[in-house]
């Protein structure tokens, strides 16, 4: 249900044939929601392990370099799935969710999470293969990892709240 005056471009997205199909479907919408969860488990679950390693909370005996090289591509698959399903779900509800504050905060946190990842990967992460064993993980890397956890958890929580407000 559309409440309030949404901009024309939002209304246009809302009326795309694909948006309408998703919105009025019996199965497609719930299936997209299910894949959205699969994707977020793959993204957030795997990233959390890597971030917690950088924070020195778990797998302390494992050098971070090989762990990152292994897990990052997996997490990107998760991102692809959660982002694609999310985009379709959003398009289908674009007009009805336009004024939803939790959606707005979620999208901001998502942007922050991606920006944080970009900054991390173009700076201190470049030296990840030096860390482990005698060389500790630099504090800045731990800070990026902590921020990453906060942002992704924030995305998850605000995303859940959308349905209730």
């Amino acid at each position, binding site marked *: 249900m559309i409440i309030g005056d949404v901009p024309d471009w939002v209304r246009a997205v809302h009326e795309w044939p694909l948006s309408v199909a998703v919105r009025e479907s019996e199965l497609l919408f719930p299936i997209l929601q*299910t894949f959205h969860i699969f994707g977020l*488990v*793959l993204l957030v679950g795997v990233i959390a*392990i890597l971030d917690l390693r950088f924070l020195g909370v778990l797998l*302390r005996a494992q050098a971070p*370099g090989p762990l990152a*090289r292994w897990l990052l591509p997996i997490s990107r698959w998760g991102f692809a799935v959660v982002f694609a399903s999310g985009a379709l779900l959003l398009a289908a509800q674009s007009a009805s969710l336009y004024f939803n504050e939790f959606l707005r905060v979620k999208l901001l946190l998502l942007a922050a999470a991606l920006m944080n990842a970009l900054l991390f990967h173009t700076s201190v992460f470049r030296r990840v293969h030096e860390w482990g064993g005698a060389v500790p993980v630099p504090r800045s890397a731990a800070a990026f990892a902590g921020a990453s956890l906060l942002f992704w958890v924030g995305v998850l*929580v605000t995303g859940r709240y959308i349905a*209730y407000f």
Partner: protein
Amino acid sequence: MLDQLAELSPARAIADSIAVFAGVESLHIMFIAFLGGCVLVSGLAGVGAAPRGIAPAALLQGLRWPYRGAIAGAAITGALLFATSAQKYLSNPLFTVKLILLASAIAVQVLLARSLARPGGAGWSRLFGIASLLLWLGAITAGRWIGLI
């Protein structure tokens, strides 16, 4: 009796709070996500899919307590969610399906760990690995569809 208990509850001020329910739900999802990560990473390492530079045995060992913590967290938050409308959940067949799939997933996880520890258990490990994946995904799906039927 529950009414009297509600009167005693120190959290009475947050009765009917949507923020609380959604918060518990969010925690539930967080624990599930972390659980999924642990299961996937352990599973891959266990069946030999971890690359050079990863010590599988140490990895499996190191993820054991995080995995247990994630299950405990998901179970506690799940129990809280269940308690909010126990009757409705019990009468929903998908809830039963979810619990069965969950119990099976955890059981297969144990079998997987054992077959990995056994020399020559590689064949079983692949079987249990695939079964584990299907059961966990099935449990998540059943959980999501509870409110949609």
